[in-house]
């Protein structure tokens, strides 16, 4: 339980750009969400909300999202990032985290930014499972643009990734006989949650997320959509091409690009540490997203 309903705030000012980064807690239903605001030096030309993933994928993609936020702020775009309730430095029980609570958090964090923009262009970006949250939030907030980094298209895909991750983790550490997916599900039902590489996966979250599917935002006006497909393939995955087609069918201006790099989100690279800034995957994801966003925002303002 929180004894304090927050005004705790940390601000850093960059004298070179005139921009600020603020980290603060905001209240949501008795819990506290940690929110980061990246503000450019002058009046922002637009705004963006970044929705991270959860579990290990939240951490693995974290620095990339920070770098994107800072790059966007340097280009005059106001950005907000946050930790979902039950995850990271926000308060709350991770066993209570659900698709709905994650979406509520995204909408709560985006609200003040959208109001502040007063009609200037607004984009939402989501990574991995965060793409599900970003898509739903884009629909509710009538965003101008949506960028999805390596989106997990369905709940089924998410749990396939997670169960594989657990298996790979067990295998790489030379542990006991790997648990099958069926055994994991049984344990999840019996105990309420299972341990996935040191993170709890609750049965509640499983039941809630399994039927979810990105639906191409049929209920919103046309928006620009960028899908960044990450991996060593050198071409976008079939699932991501199909997702691009789905968005296009619903009347959106959708594109898919490939960011090449030889890493998977569930195991760290074994052949030397490479800082995020120098990873080809990060560099190409940032480059593709920044140039796309500049085009989208310029186009919106001209329109």
């Amino acid at each position, binding site marked *: 339980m929180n004894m304090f309903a927050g005004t705790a705030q940390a601000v850093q000012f960059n004298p070179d750009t005139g921009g600020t980064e603020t980290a603060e807690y905001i209240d949501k239903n008795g819990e506290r969400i940690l929110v980061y605001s990246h503000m450019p030096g002058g009046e922002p030309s637009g705004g963006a909300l970044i929705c991270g993933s959860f579990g290990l994928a939240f951490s693995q993609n974290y620095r990339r999202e920070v770098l994107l936020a800072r790059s966007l702020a340097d280009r005059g775009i106001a950005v907000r990032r946050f930790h979902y309730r039950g995850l990271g*430095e926000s308060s709350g029980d991770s066993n209570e985290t659900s698709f709905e609570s994650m979406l509520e958090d995204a909408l709560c964090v985006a609200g003040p930014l959208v109001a502040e923009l007063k009609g200037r262009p607004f984009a939402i970006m989501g990574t991995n499972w965060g793409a599900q949250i970003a898509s739903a939030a884009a629909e509710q907030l009538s965003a101008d643009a949506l960028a999805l980094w390596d989106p997990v298209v369905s709940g089924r895909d998410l749990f396939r990734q997670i169960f594989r991750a657990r298996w790979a983790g067990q295998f790489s550490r030379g542990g006991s006989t790997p648990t099958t997916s069926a055994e994991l599900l049984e344990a999840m039902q019996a105990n309420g949650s299972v341990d996935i590489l040191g993170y709890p996966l609750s049965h509640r979250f499983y039941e809630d997320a399994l039927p979810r599917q990105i639906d191409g935002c049929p209920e919103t006006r046309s928006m620009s959509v960028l899908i960044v497909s990450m991996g060593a393939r050198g071409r976008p995955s079939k699932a991501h091409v199909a997702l691009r087609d789905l968005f296009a069918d619903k009347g959106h201006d959708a594109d898919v690009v490939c960011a090449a790099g030889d890493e998977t989100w569930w195991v760290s690279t074994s052949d030397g540490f490479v800082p995020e800034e120098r990873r080809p995957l990060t560099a190409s994801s940032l480059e593709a997203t920044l140039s796309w966003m500049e085009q989208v925002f310029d186009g919106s303002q001209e329109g």
Partner: protein
Amino acid sequence: MAMVMTNTVTATDSPVFFHAGGESLFGVITHPGAGYRNLGFVIANSAGYYLASGRNRVWQRLGHRLSDRGFPAIRFTYRGTGDSTGAVDQFSLRGSFSQDVAGAVDFLTQQGIESVAVVGSCFGSRCALDVAAEHPNVRAAVLLSPPLRDSVLGQEKSMRVAQNVNTLGYVQRGLRLRTLRAIFEPKRRQAYQRIVAAKLSMIRRRSPRHGRVEHPSWMSSKFLDNLSAAVSRGVLVHLVFGADESSYADFVAAKEGRLGKILADAGSLVTTSILDGPVHSLWDIGVQDRVVAEVEKWAADSWPEVRRIMAEGAFPGAATTGATTTSPLEDPSNAALSRVAEQR
């Protein structure tokens, strides 16, 4: 780029930015509020981990548990990771990120907390020990699964090959057709170069010109020097290993050499706990819970001893005024903290 920062620290969790070695680091401080104990904890993460809260929020849980017992605690991200500024080329145990840990210690000191215990996990434990050896305000160090070998994140495998294979076996491996073929692959070539460099360094250390070593050739001299320096300053050191991990096997083997002598001379200043399973990387929720409970218990048990040492002013070079202090909550100039105290 010098950032200008302002922080409003309140009871419970507060995000903060602080300076360390020219960078701006992000952290979260958990403050118990009024009546806090004058021993703060700095929690130093493993290498390359991007959230201050750690895997499955283990450091957030530890911060809260310590705070419940009256100890302020800060967790943070190293330069070039998470929300901190800067870039990092490699996480090397030889050139550790001790400046970042020292920056966090200084930040606690600026908050009116004069005595600090550093808690480090894996790579973080080596940074913590660096700081414990020198920083006048550090009174204690809890080292979780400290690596006793010097290596670089992602290069542990190469180092182990160099350290565990004898010179003859090493030459035999080098002459294998598969090895020779792999020299043409850039990544493999780099790995071989690392192994050769490590092997040459070990051979040099063993040569008569460098004198007879008193510890296994793979043992980090820096670890031993820092442990010795910390103990000679009167710093309490608590070593925690997992029973099923290589660093514990290294610890047992290293006790035969200089490490054993340092431990014997240190007496009750150095304590050791062995937990079930591998502690390294905290891959298991059960292990995370055991680690949190261990540090919390150690903090509670050690507090009287730390307070006694502080009262006696037994730390050479320490800028201590004793165990009691005016709480920032009682300082009328700290409006935010005072407000929180009233609410509690």
